């Protein structure tokens, strides 16, 4: 059936099977490979994307359920080659190891900060409960999210504002977060 939705700010209209999962639509129809299929059972969070600014696991959403809504993937954060502050903070704090969980982790963090711009460390850990890192890298991931929060991360969807920031500013924010931790 025909479905119309927005993907990273672009309007799309595609003929899809009702059973096509959003993560497969993003990867195979749109060619966006940031969202990974990890557990495929709504557990690991590697497929996390934003749906109208809210974090969801795209392995458990039908593409047709997203009709009329805006999907944001990790590719949509770094418009024009400029890292989103959360991405910059993950780099600054080395919030990744193998990288498989990272796109989902970043999207979950962006969603978390849009709901709670100034989380405690406990709130960050609870807010990322739905994202598994099997490299056991949670410590630096939490530091990265706190660093991003300390720098003030714009609400999901405010991409233009985010990408207007300079890498230097992101770095300062990250350092401020580290000093405050």
């Amino acid at each position, binding site marked *: *059936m025909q479905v119309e939705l927005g993907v990273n700010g672009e309007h799309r209209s595609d003929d899809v*099977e*009702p*059973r096509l*999962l959003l993560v497969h639509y993003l990867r195979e129809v749109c060619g966006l490979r940031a969202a990974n299929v990890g557990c*495929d*059972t*709504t*557990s690991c*969070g590697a497929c*996390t994307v934003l*749906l109208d600014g*809210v*974090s*969801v*696991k795209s392995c*458990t*959403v*039908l593409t*047709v*359920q997203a*009709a009329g809504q805006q999907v944001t993937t990790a590719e949509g954060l770094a418009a024009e080659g400029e890292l989103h502050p959360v991405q910059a903070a993950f780099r600054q704090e080395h919030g990744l190891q193998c990288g498989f969980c990272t796109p989902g982790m970043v999207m*979950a963090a962006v*969603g*978390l900060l849009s709901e709670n711009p100034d989380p405690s460390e406990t709130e960050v850990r609870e*807010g990322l*409960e*739905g*994202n*598994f890192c099997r490299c056991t890298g949670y410590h630096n991931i939490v530091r990265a999210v706190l660093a991003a929060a300390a720098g003030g991360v714009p609400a999901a969807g405010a991409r233009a504002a985010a990408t207007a920031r300079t890498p230097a500013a992101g770095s300062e924010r990250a350092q401020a977060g580290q000093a405050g931790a």
Partner: protein
Amino acid sequence: MIAAPFDYVAAESATHALELLDSFGDDAKLLAGGHSLLPMMKLRLAAPSVLIDIGRLAELTGIRADGDELVIGAATTHATLAASDLVRADAPLLAHSAGLVGDPQIRHRGTIGGSLAHADPAADLPMALLALGGSVEVLGGDGTRNVAAEDLFAGFFETSLEPGELIAWVRVPRRPGRAWGYQKFVRRANDWAIVGAAAIEGRIALANMGPVPLRARAAEQALAGGASVAEAAELAAEGTEPGEDLHADRGYRRHLARVLARRALEHRT
């Protein structure tokens, strides 16, 4: 994992959903958040030929006070429920329970009506509704009927809903300022309870101590008869026949029920 093929229809209203249910019969399933149904379909444990989407019907979402009760649209998400000032003030046990379902992403999609209709005995919201003495408003071809939580859960993943019926609203007594407790024992992040216990005003509900969420009636009666919390909690597993799995055998589940019921009666969360 890919679900078996199906047709998808977005219902335009609750009435339209009932008409669709009527026309498609047993081949159709209602879809809201899809966080119980879609995983089962991906595993091919369920293979409906039609999904009727009621997840975005405005008339089935939202939370309002109606006299002594809160009325919650069945398609209200766990995240909305957990964050609602009204629910946090008047039914804090329910808000707390909703905030423990799965993880943040799951709470953004999963709905209270879906969770109740799924009737997983290990789930949070069925236990919470039972502890609170809530009910559901069910729409069907013959109109609306009210089903108490006690009568809703009929068996393992089974409700007393008739074919062609849908849960439209959930009713919960307003109990502002009353002490309550909630215990959920898990080993892994975003998991279901190995055993759960919820208590408010002498009512105790248990999760995963049988095929349906259960009241700990022996413990409740002991409390009503003047027993101490510790004495009453010792009776929390009376009459239960919990299942066994790799997490816990029957004896361990009974032990957990006693310990968690005591903590819930001590109003711990």
